[in-house]
């Protein structure tokens, strides 16, 4: 246990160091080093998860010689470790599965730069997961913003540049609002570390003037992170960003980056603001309403899309709506459902984004539905994995998507408010039908072709680097679906440690 306490620090330092190192390496070595580093980080995070589960309590780690309210601190509990393990695993799979496309999409001289950005993004993700300090959150939020724009523009076609401009502007607005929120919170409390901040807020919550500022601060901060993660009225950057980025980037952006922002928000709610104080505000109701709207609007837009990647991207907008609906439901059950859905969506969406380019590759490199006719027959493996994750996305039992929808339903029942219950049940039903309509239509499309004799498999060069990560993701998906109670138990334990 004593050694394990150092691992969160090591994950951050190691990924920062290898980020700086990668810029000096040639492309192939850079990729190998990226995979090796992700592997080492994954092992470390798994060790932390095992250690924390074994000990049954979270630990904080002082960054330097100055203790809590004066120096920086990071913290590891079950929830942080679980997210770190899952996210690093998904990152590993994305890098491994997407590199053949990377070599097509990128100039050779840019490949080391790409892996530099991936390392820095890993460092930012790790810091945002482990952080116990709201300003550290802001600093690494900036790195996250820049790296996520970087891995988007790296594929230099006009659409990605356009998408990156839009993504960057909205992202910077989000960062700016987050910073304003942090400044107001610091002015109110005089602390940047989460726990002392929460204690001070509990003291000043009785004062109406402070409470007004607190309302504004938390509101601004929430809007900032909602813009960055793509909640409903701010989802407009999603289709182009996810739809045109190179497959590794699309998978990382859709599955990991937006989820990290949401996790930071949940962490701030629990550890910096405090749930009792948060309950006095109305932010939760706004998030609930926007989440439900996002679920419906995202699905309708996905039906309208004419391009498979844009459809999957719009479906992301709907899934982000689910997560915010869970946060808006409140109560332990709501947060558990939201966090569980974060994992489910991360694993499913990354698999979808890593599969669609293979379907496009056998369809004249076109992502349009018209061209994709029969692509599941032309590439058997990609068709199977697409069907697999699409079924999970719809919420068919056995797959992970069903488990999370069930959790949302249970959370709504436990929330004790009949209006919320009715709203959630109707939204879940409607959104599932819409989900099913566009995913099943796509499945039918990729399997309907006049000429069944053209059945083909992946070329040998692609098989191992594609099949291995896809099988890992599929296994993780089934694990979340069949053994959901294990993961949900961990999430409940982690949330209990938050307080």
């Amino acid at each position, binding site marked *: 246990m004593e050694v394990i306490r150092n691992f969160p620090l090591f994950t951050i330092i190691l990924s920062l160091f290898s980020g700086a*190192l990668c810029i000096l390496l040639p492309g192939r070595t850079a990729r190998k080093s990226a995979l090796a580093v992700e592997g080492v980080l994954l092992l470390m995070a798994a060790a932390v998860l095992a250690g924390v589960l074994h000990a049954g309590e979270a630990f904080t780690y002082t960054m330097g010689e100055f203790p809590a309210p004066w120096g920086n601190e990071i913290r590891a509990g079950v929830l942080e470790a679980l997210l770190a393990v899952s996210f690093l695993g998904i990152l590993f799979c994305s890098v491994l599965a997407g590199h053949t496309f990377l070599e097509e999409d990128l100039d050779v001289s840019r490949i080391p730069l790409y892996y530099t950005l991936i390392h820095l993004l890993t460092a930012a993700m790790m810091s945002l997961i482990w952080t116990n300090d709201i300003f550290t959150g802001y600093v690494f939020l900036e790195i996250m913003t820049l790296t996520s724009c*970087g891995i988007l523009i790296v594929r230099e076609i006009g659409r990605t540049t356009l998408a990156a401009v839009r993504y960057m502007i909205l992202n910077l607005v989000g960062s700016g609002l987050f910073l304003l929120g942090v400044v107001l919170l610091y002015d109110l409390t005089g*602390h940047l570390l989460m726990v002392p901040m929460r204690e001070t807020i509990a003291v000043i919550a009785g004062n109406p003037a402070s409470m007004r500022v607190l309302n504004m601060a938390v509101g601004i901060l929430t809007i900032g992170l909602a813009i960055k993660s793509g909640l409903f009225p701010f989802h407009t950057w999603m289709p182009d960003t996810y739809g045109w980025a190179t497959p590794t980037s699309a998978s990382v952006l859709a599955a990991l980056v937006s989820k990290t922002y949401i996790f930071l928000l949940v962490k701030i709610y629990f550890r910096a603001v405090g749930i009792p104080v948060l309950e006095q505000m109305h932010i939760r109701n706004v998030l609930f309403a926007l989440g439900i709207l996002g679920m419906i609007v995202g699905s309708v837009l996905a039906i309208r899309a004419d391009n498979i990647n844009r459809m999957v991207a719009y479906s992301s907008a709907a899934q982000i709506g689910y997560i915010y609906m869970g946060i808006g439901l409140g109560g332990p059950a709501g947060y558990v459902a939201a966090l569980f859905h974060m994992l489910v969506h991360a694993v499913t969406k990354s698999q979808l984004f890593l599969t669609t380019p293979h379907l496009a590759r056998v369809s004249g490199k076109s992502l349009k539905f018209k061209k994709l006719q029969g692509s599941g027959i032309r590439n058997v493996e990609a068709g199977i994995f697409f069907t697999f994750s699409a079924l999970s996305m719809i919420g068919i039992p056995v797959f992970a998507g069903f488990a999370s929808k069930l959790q949302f339903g249970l959370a709504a029942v436990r929330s004790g408010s009949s209006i919320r219950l009715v709203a959630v049940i109707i939204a879940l039903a409607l959104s599932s039908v819409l989900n099913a309509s566009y995913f099943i239509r796509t499945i039918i499309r990729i399997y309907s072709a006049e000429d069944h004799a053209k059945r083909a498999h992946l070329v040998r060069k692609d098989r191992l680097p594609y099949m291995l990560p896809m099988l890992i993701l599929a296994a993780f998906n089934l694990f979340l679906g069949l053994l959901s109670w294990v993961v949900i138990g961990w999430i409940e334990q982690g949330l209990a440690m938050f307080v």
Partner: protein
Amino acid sequence: MKQNLEKRLWKWLEGEWEPLDYLSEPAEVRDSSRESLKEQKKHLRESIDRMEHTQAVVRAEQKGFYAFYTLTAVICCLVLIGVLLYSVANVSEYGVENPLTMEVVGRYVSRGLYETGAVNVVSGMILDYRAFDTLGESHVLFTALVCVLILLHRDRKNMLPGVEDYYTVSRENYYELSGDPILRTVGMVLLPCIFLYGIYVLLNGQNSPGGGFSGGTVMGSALIILSACVGFARTDRFFTRRMITLVIFVSLAFYSLAKGYVFFMGANGLENHIPKGVPGTILSGGLILPLNIAVGMVVACTMYGFYSLFKRGSIGEDGTSLD
């Protein structure tokens, strides 16, 4: 209309029709040589009609969009201004000490010199108390440099065909201001002073206002003036891309490893054996001086790199830019 909708639904399910077809579908390519003149005219008329229709739709959408966009932007700004003014009106008054919020700041001010060995409390704060944040901040610059390198680095992929020759042939004088004798003379007089000032600011970060970020900026601007005065051809002899990335790598690696060591020792309750030195002298403040130098190197190289990339699309000649 109803039947039309049903028909469309089926066409959509069968994949023959997409809702956005009217915008995205280009006109079919026909082999016009085999058509009669009348047919050609007809097809031309059709495609013009379709184009005009698309344009009209797009224009109508744009018009609505611009009105909506302006209105929303104004409303958003007004709301944000209102929210901020409302918050500021409710925060505690400036200059009034609130004992509740003074815990952290009080310790920084009263014990900062003793605990960090730095006369400049701000340096002690950002490089010692809250060094982890600054570790992130120095990597923000590096990230920005990598992004600009991706965007602006000129190679075969992001250049128009034909433009290449123009750049390569005339690049000798195309990018250079160095022929200007006034710039050159004044630059040669000013440069040593600017460099010296930058080094002073950098090295005295722990004793007076300044440090890595500001000193590095001064030195970076000196490098920019240098390259404008003597021309890239001469600065490239030393500042190659390899050199710049190597300096950045060494600085950042030193920063993260040194701070990682301090974090590790501090968290495990061990002594880190870094002498604090005599406050007020150059060699004081423990790690603050070397960290300031590292940050300064990164900032200076980043500034020069940005300038060079924006001006000519590469950092230094090393054979990777244009064959």
